[in-house]
């Protein structure tokens, strides 16, 4: 299967190449695209690369951080500004995968992979996308929902408001420690305003084809205190809207059964 590799100096040229060729895929760290090539994916005929160093920059301005799509998971772990993402980044792959895999690529990782996207979804991140006709900003939830239909564009960066210390909580349930794919992963961002929850975000990985929000559980928490009854309300709604797959790690039934258990523990701040 002949594959052509095209390397462009600018993001704009790469985006134009991606949008004009259905068989083109952007190569970031290689953990998704090279894997597809190794498996002989015939739909993939062109590999597009960019030499723009801007893609691997991290910028912090005020309360907001912008992470270039080419920033690796290992780079996140060395960046103090991104301490709130360290637990998530550390839970992904082994060191070699973290040296390669990128933030942008993680948004495309098929379930049960893509744990970083779960944390970014709980933070209401914004995804900057360069298409053939220009750049736009998309809410991460909308991006994930449409990602498999819109392959002909290039993610350039992801930005989010930096959460208050310890406001973002994350847990990954896997069968092998320290490295193993997700039975599921869960990230919660529960801002506390005067003792009550305001603007809660709960995101799951491996509970649907992409990372999803648990909106019923979020609504149940809104305006409540994080006590037994507030948490019980959220846990009661924990499995609403999920469509987990059965795979070699866990059955759909098991994932439905345990989602509320781990949500409760995470809300209570308990260990897994």
């Amino acid at each position, binding site marked *: 299967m002949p594959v052509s*590799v095209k390397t462009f100096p600018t993001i704009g040229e790469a985006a134009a190449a991606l949008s004009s060729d259905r068989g083109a895929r952007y190569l970031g760290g290689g953990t998704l695209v*090279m894997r597809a090539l190794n498996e002989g994916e015939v739909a993939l005929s062109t590999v597009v690369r960019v030499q723009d160093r801007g893609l691997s920059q991290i910028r912090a301005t005020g309360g907001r951080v912008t992470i270039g799509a080419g920033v690796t998971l290992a780079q996140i772990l060395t960046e103090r500004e991104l301490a709130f993402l360290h637990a998530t980044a550390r839970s992904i792959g*082994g060191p070699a995968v973290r040296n*390669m895999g990128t933030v942008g690529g993680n948004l495309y990782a098929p379930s049960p992979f893509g744990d970083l996207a779960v944390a970014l979804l709980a933070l209401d991140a914004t995804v900057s996308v360069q298409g053939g006709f220009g750049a736009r900003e998309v809410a991460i939830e909308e991006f994930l929902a449409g990602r498999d239909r819109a392959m002909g564009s290039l993610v350039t960066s992801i930005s989010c408001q930096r959460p208050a210390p310890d406001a973002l909580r994350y847990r990954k349930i896997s069968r092998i420690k320290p490295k193993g794919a997700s039975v599921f992963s869960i990230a919660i961002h529960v801002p506390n305003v005067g003792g009550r929850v305001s603007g809660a975000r709960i995101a799951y990985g491996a509970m649907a084809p992409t990372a999803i929000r648990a909106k019923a559980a979020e609504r149940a928490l809104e305006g409540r205190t994080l006590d037994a009854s507030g948490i019980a309300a959220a846990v009661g709604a924990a499995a609403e809207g999920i469509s987990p797959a059965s795979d070699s790690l866990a059955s759909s039934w098991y994932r439905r059964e345990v989602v509320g258990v781990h949500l409760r523990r995470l809300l209570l701040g308990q260990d897994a």
Partner: protein
Amino acid sequence: MAKTALQFRHNGREVAVFVDSGGNLLNALREGVGDVSVKFGCGQGGCGACTVLIDGEAHLSCLTLAETIEGRSVETADGLKTGPELHPLQKAFMDNFAAQCGYCTPGMLMAAKALIDRNPSPSRQEVVEAISGNICRCTGYEPIISAIFSVAAGGGAKRA
């Protein structure tokens, strides 16, 4: 298939090979350079058998587009020895019976080297973390962890 010329440093030596367009570094090393110390395991990034160091960092050669290493430095297990002298990690693997079938060993050695080069006295937990991306189906990992730990400065008692 289109071929691309590629030049890079392989274990300290400049090499030039032709690679298939879209081909991975693992094949470039095994078929182009002739370094068969690098093993093909899963081709998916799940096993770590193909681990090499690129500019000193652990990478999976099967998931690395060969063309991206133009001008860079690649280290493999084949380059660990100095003449007839084994690298301390290789000696420690022998002393600790850290290889049975040996297929994971080159990847394990390179993952361990990436750790020791950066952090000469890691904790046991750091050793476990460093090889967490490398699968071994024979040893149960304990001899491998002991071997790496014995090389770490101040870690474990070195065996004669």
